[in-house]
């Protein structure tokens, strides 16, 4: 489509074959959607997935057929590829839009100040009322502890890889950090379960959950910090070292401050990622209806697990179901805000690489 604007300015030349007008693709798309709707009405199909699929097939076939007739087979193939790429894009947008719309529509029902500030202490699953205060508290403590543990380890590992690491050890660490990003969250949960709860015989607690979250968070922090440290120009390091500043002070006072914006962004994105993890929390924190402010003793609640428990107890309707959606809205809002702020920081504090 961007090429069209270039070619349009030239006078028509005999070297160019016949071309279809710019609005051709839109016209075919509109026609395909109308036809798809028409067919599904005529055949009495009830699902929107069906008419959308019909419309997509009609769109691709229509582009090919008309273009092959007017412009020739090569251009027709090009148009098929273009329309397929557009269809792929729309197919990805539809679930996202549907998900956002459903969550907001369902979640807003019981979402208010009362919901955020009360626990489920004396509320049965079938009754209305109750809230997520205990779950928010639990999630905040578990994620906070996980962040406290994994940020120093992650940042130091990244410093090792970028500033010191050579040879086999660094290679092994790089490889296993990469592999660690792919560990399923439930496996991290099972590991802490076998070590902490089955072998060391400690009870279920928020801290057990934080340890599993730490395993999931470390590789993300290492990776993003590593990328940011690599962006720091070497001239800065060399200038500092040339002044006789020891290397560790160079790293602390020059390298880290230069890249702190990006590192913060990476950490916030990592927090956003683990805040929604359900599986390890389900295995290790157990869940509770009452407020438990101590993450080191006794089961706690957590926001994602609250959603799961309310959902499984609700049977797909009633007060518990509404609460599950409202909690989902809270969780998504928190994660999206964290994402937006993190990306804002990244843009605002992007290291000046100095060309």
């Amino acid at each position, binding site marked *: 489509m961007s090429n069209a604007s270039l070619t349009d300015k030239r006078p028509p030349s005999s070297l160019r074959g016949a071309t279809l007008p710019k609005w051709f693709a839109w016209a075919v798309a509109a026609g395909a959607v109308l036809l798809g709707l028409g067919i599904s009405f005529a055949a009495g199909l009830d699902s929107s997935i069906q008419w959308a699929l019909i419309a997509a097939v009609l769109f691709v076939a229509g582009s090919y057929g008309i273009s092959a007739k007017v412009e020739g087979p090569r*251009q027709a193939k090009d148009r098929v590829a273009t329309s397929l*790429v557009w269809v792929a894009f729309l197919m990805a947008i539809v679930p996202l839009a549907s998900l956002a719309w459903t969550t907001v529509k369902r979640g807003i029902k019981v979402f208010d100040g009362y919901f955020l500030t009360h626990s489920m202490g004396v509320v049965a699953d079938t009754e209305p009322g109750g809230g997520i205060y205990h779950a928010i508290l639990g999630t905040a403590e578990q994620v906070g502890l996980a962040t406290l543990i994994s940020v120093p380890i992650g940042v130091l590992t990244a410093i090792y890889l970028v500033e*010191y690491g050579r040879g086999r050890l660094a*290679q092994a660490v790089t490889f*296993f950090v990469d592999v660690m990003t792919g560990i399923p969250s439930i496996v991290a949960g*099972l590991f802490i*379960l076998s070590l902490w709860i089955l072998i060391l015989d400690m009870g279920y607690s928020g801290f057990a959950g934080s340890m599993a979250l730490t395993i999931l968070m470390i590789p993300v922090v290492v990776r993003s910090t590593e990328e940011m440290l690599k962006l720091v120009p070497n001239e800065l390091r060399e200038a500092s070292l040339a002044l006789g500043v020891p290397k*560790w002070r160079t790293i602390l006072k020059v390298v880290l401050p230069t890249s702190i914006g990006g590192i913060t962004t990476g950490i916030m994105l990592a927090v956003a990622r683990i805040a929604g993890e359900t599986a390890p929390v389900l295995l290790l924190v157990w869940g509770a209806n009452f407020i438990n402010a101590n993450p080191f003793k006794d089961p706690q609640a957590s926001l994602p697990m609250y959603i799961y428990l309310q959902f499984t107890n609700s049977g797909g309707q009633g007060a518990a179901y509404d609460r599950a959606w409202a909690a989902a809205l809270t969780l998504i809002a928190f994660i*999206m805000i964290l994402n937006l702020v993190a990306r804002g920081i990244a843009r605002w504090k992007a290291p000046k690489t100095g060309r």
Partner: protein
Amino acid sequence: MDTTTENPAAPPALQPAETDKGAARGASRPGDRVFIGLSRGSGIFVLVLMAAIAAFLTYRAVLALSKNEANFFTTMEWNPSGVPPQFGIAVLAFGTIVSSVIAMAIAVPIAVGIALFITHYAPRKLGGTIAYVIDLLAAVPSIVYGLWGALVLVPHLNGLYGWLDDYFGWTGLFAWDGGPARSLFTVGILLAIMILPIITNVSREVFRQVPRMHEEAALALGATRWEVIRMSVLPFGRSGIISASMLGLGRALGETMAVAMVLSPTFTIQASLLDAGGGTFAQNIASKFNEATEMGRDALIASGLVLFVITLLVNGAARLIIARRKEYSGANA
């Protein structure tokens, strides 16, 4: 290719150029020694952690397997607290592989399409916005995907499954009994939506790095945009697409909550993908955990160990392929 594999120790261009001699001299100051010790210690901690995960899972798994009276790999039953205890992972392995393969079959073409859309089709500004939206898709927690899948996706698939049953039901694979669409195929579709972002992001990075000259040369020969993509972009990005897909596969294999909320599990292997039933490793752990006895937990850990090994192999292979080009890793995707 061979030159890079021959010398894997060559430092990436972006790292600070520094000789071993310089590092050694820096280490002579006490502050430096402490700092090196701390940072190397963190690196070693990561390795120890990986080893510990493997070791402790194996230890508990062996406890369970030594009491298992049935073949762990072929038994289609999960009864670890029975007398005698009998459990096997055949159903779980089948369900995990089938749902992941469906997810890949749907997600990879669409993700490559979106990546091409962002890099080669969309106007620059729109491309940036879409890349951002795809990142947001990656940030949605799996539990919310599960809620959405159970409420929106499952009922919407009835029409589609009716079609598949009408036209392809004779294959047996797509036969449908008309029950709720809480089947492996639905799980595959949901997983496809969930792994779309990571495949898109990694492929996008690869497509960005296609040498501009290749594309311009093709354009100068009069190629259409599709021909440019087929001749210069896709060949260059092939290894990137493969490893992106394997990263996506790793995610799909280990996905827990969304599967547990959408699938209606049974411990059977059935030919039809559309009928409710089946199970996956992660889903089985999450839904059996609460009622499990100590023996039951060890059995679940044994199945988790299998999942761990599979994802380790898949991710390791993806990383080895992608390591040829250091600049992108997709770990932040």
